[in-house]
């Protein structure tokens, strides 16, 4: 073993704390470093939310357009107070766009959930080709949304492969105007979203199912629970948080739908597929009435942030899942000895 102590005890005990430069002290103070860490992020937030919101609100009260000759900061010259807002809220074009967005979101997300969950349950048990299949399923999610729009533009042509395949399958000639018939066009947009994002729903729900506690399932089986009973009393209740997250995240993204719809139909025929984003884009770049478009934009921002408040809670809860700070672990209630002795006296 070591011959003697590494350095004499008294010598070690005598050392004092060194003096530190201002910069070194700054680098050591938790508060200062924490604030420095998040400052750039907060600046980025300002740049992308706060300034645009202020400018948009300012413009939304005016009739200003880029062609009106005077610079944007003199938009007050054509001050309209709430006219733009009234026009949007009373006009049916705005509400029609809102309605279409809701229809797309509800139908697409529900279909994605049902297909995704069904497939996840089907493929839960490990089998030879599962790894390959999951990879194949990944591909649609990876496709650039604009390209997805283009692909289905080709597929949904009158003489395209979809109609050809249906004619081959079904009796008689099939010639559905996927992109031309105003009643069906919106449904075509929904199909593209379902094609592209069902795999994500499948993967989220699959990872939820895989993470279910194996031993609770075994315990239920030993107590005699059949498959149906396990599904209703164990699988569904425990999957609730993940199902909620999957639905919210998909709904959040589908509300913003633009790329695929634009590439495939530019919101047409007419405005049959003009979701909120398409409608706003058209008003801004075709209608060039920026005051009105800003008003619509502000209305959209208000609606979405109300939704967002409710929607974030489950995502935050799941992300915060890991309990790491010291105190909560120490607070765990623990039977003290006296209680154990009391329980024993009572039991006898």
């Amino acid at each position: 073993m070591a011959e003697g102590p590494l350095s004499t005890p008294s010598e070690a005990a005598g050392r004092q704390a060194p003096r530190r430069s201002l910069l070194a002290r700054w680098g050591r103070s938790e508060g200062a470093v924490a604030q420095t860490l998040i400052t750039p992020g907060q600046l980025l937030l300002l740049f992308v939310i706060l300034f645009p919101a202020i400018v948009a609100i300012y413009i939304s009260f005016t009739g200003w357009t880029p062609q009106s000759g005077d610079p944007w900061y003199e938009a007050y010259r054509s001050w309209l107070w709430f006219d733009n807002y009234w026009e949007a809220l009373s006009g049916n074009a705005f509400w029609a766009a809102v309605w279409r967005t809701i229809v797309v979101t509800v139908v697409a997300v529900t279909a994605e959930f049902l297909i995704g969950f069904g497939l996840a349950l089907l493929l839960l048990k490990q089998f030879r080709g599962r790894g390959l299949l999951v990879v194949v399923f990944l591909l649609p999610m990876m496709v650039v949304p604009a390209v997805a729009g283009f692909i289905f533009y080709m597929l949904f042509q009158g003489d395209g492969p979809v109609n050809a395949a249906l004619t081959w399958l079904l009796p008689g000639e099939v010639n559905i105007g996927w992109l031309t018939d105003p009643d069906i066009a919106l449904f075509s947009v929904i199909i593209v979203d379902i094609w592209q994002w069902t795999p994500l729903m499948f993967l989220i729900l699959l990872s939820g199912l895989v993470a279910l506690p194996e031993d609770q399932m075994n315990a239920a089986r030993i107590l005699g629970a059949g498959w149906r009973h396990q599904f209703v009393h164990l699988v569904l209740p425990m999957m609730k948080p993940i199902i909620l997250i999957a639905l919210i995240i998909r709904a959040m993204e589908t509300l913003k739908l633009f790329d695929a719809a634009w590439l495939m139909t530019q919101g047409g025929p007419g405005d049959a597929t003009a979701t909120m984003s398409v409608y706003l884009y058209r008003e801004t770049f075709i209608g060039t009435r920026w005051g009105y478009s800003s008003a619509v934009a502000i209305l959209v921002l208000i609606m979405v942030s109300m939704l967002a408040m409710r929607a974030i809670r489950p995502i935050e809860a799941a992300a915060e899942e890991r309990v790491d700070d010291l105190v909560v672990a120490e607070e765990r209630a623990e039977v003290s000895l006296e209680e154990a002795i009391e329980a024993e006296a009572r039991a006898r």
Partner: protein
Amino acid sequence: MAGIRLDNVTKRFGSVTALDRISVEIEDGEFFAVLGHPGAGKTTMLRTIVGLETPDEGDVYAAGERITDVYPGDRDIAIMFQNLALYPDKSVYNNLAFPLKQAKVPKQQIEQRVAEVARVLRIEPLLKRKPAKLSGGERQRVALGRAMVRDPRALLLDEPLSALDALLRLEMRAELKRLQRELGRTVVYVTHDQVEAMSMADRIAVLREGVLQQVDQPENIYHRPANRFVATVVGSPPMNFLHAEGAWSGGTLELRHPLFTVTTAEAASESLRGRLAEGQECLVGVRPEDVHVTSAPGIPATVYVTEPLGGETVVDLDLGGRLVKALVDPTLKLQENEAVQLALDGQRLHVFDAEGVGLLSAAGEPLFTVSAS
């Protein structure tokens, strides 16, 4: 004076008071254990000494100098976390060299110092490996090495042996004790295992829900517990408690239990004069190893269940409706519900008041005589 002193340290986390007015002095070079159940605030105490937690009230002193607000890295105190917190991406050598690099120690001196520590801890062959490739015992030694390498004035160990299996824990206990004696450094050792505390510490501080119960040598913690909690923390199976009533006849105090009476020696009764009134409830504490099954007439009891452990046998006895545990010789064969006679070792009895505060402990002195009533 050169050791570590906590002066009235209080630390709250929201509504929970993790440390409640802790004042304790740890001598320099002492092997000081902090014993308590999980959640008693032991780890918070360590984190306050090293500076990872700042106390809401009170101060921390090292070698007489106030270090309450000194940055952890500048306190010259090292800590070994319960999960060891080795740097997974760095080799064992770099884990050991890391603190020296931060202290800007010249490279050549770092190599020599790391080699020295590696030799002392017998981990030279592991220097190139990553922590993930080490066994539990090896990882534990590397973590100890990293804490020792800067030759700090004090080493704080947070339940270092808890992750090891029983056999390795036995060996590491002996090695840690030997190492501490050679280094001569102060060690503050946190554990919830009373065997570790008893067998390694020069002094033990028993902590419960952030409140210091008793600070003393292991013998006194075991034989002179300050209260009922301390009495149950050390010793396994835990101490038995029997309800009795105080009765003064002349100068001597008698503790009356339905089945036996404890008479206190003259001088000892004097010290309890003001603290136990006539007829007042009290608790007689007796450890299982001091409850003997005798052939001679004694206190009547019936055997409830026996647990043969090989080296000794734990017997649960029904003594007037209360369960009492006794430690008997394995060769003694007892049947269930068998009536037996018990004798309580008068030189090992303890007396607590109704709230569990320790009044008197025989601790080997003939202070009490027990007679069946």
